[in-house]
């Protein structure tokens, strides 16, 4: 759970730095918010007990881990 929390925090952090870079652009929602929102949702989910059970499944971890890596990649190219 701690690693997922760290991953979520990383997405929020990268998203906010990216948002500073996108300031003044028109499609900021598609760029920075698509990194921040999943990060915030995941961060919140790691503190909710029923969601924690779901997040602890091996397959869920795999999917979320892949999603985090993809979003990190996206934060460099957008």
């Amino acid at each position, binding site marked *: 759970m701690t690693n997922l929390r760290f991953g979520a*925090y990383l997405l929020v952090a990268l998203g906010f730095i990216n948002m500073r870079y996108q300031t003044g652009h028109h499609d900021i929602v598609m760029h920075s918010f698509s990194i921040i929102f999943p990060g915030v949702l995941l961060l919140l989910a790691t503190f909710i007990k029923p969601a924690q059970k779901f997040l602890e499944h091996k397959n869920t971890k795999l999917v979320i881990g892949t999603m985090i890596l993809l979003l990190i990649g996206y934060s460099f190219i957008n």
Partner: protein
Amino acid sequence: MLACTVYTLVSQSRVLPKYRAALVMSSMVTFIAGYHYFRIFNSFNESSMKNAVTVGTSQGSFNEAYRYVDWILTVPLLLVEVIAVLGLVKAASTSLITRLVPASAAMIILGYPGEISSDNGTKILFGVLSTLPFLYILYVLFVELTKSLERQPEGVAATVGRLRLLLIATWGVYPISYLIPILVKSPSESQMAMLFTNRQIGYTVADVLAKCVFGLTIYKIAKMKSVAEGMKDDH
């Protein structure tokens, strides 16, 4: 920064599980800082034209806000990283986190208005206000690190002792860089460019010291403590 991220990530297996969180936090701090530098280079390119850089808060200008966004996200982590490696009891860790994290946020938030202001009076005012939580953090950490020396295994105490000095030496570079624009009264255009460059160099050096060197010291402490607590030193 990114090399440091990779190093601390691949070194996880060299320390006991209870110290791994400190290494993960160190990796996050350097990765976020590395990303910030990637974006700051983009911003620098966009705002540069014919050897001149437009500085300001508008689009296309080089904006110091990048650093402040980076710092507000990484400095609390840096502090939690120190607390994690000390291996304190939960109540003591929680007490430190609740004191240090808000103080670090206050330090950065109070520094920003002075950073973007061109008026020296405003710079000094917010510089002083920002220094108050800065001194508080140093005081709390210095006292706690000193207290924890007695509980550290033999050999580790000396490294933790040096961590206190490293903390003051690396964090001390930030206020010096902040004060650089105040050093010259009514600067000419070329002097302003020089002051701007020197400040960027100062902040960058401070970031490398405070994030990479500090993170590597944390790793060293975690490894020494792991060995002292029975982990085989076969790596």
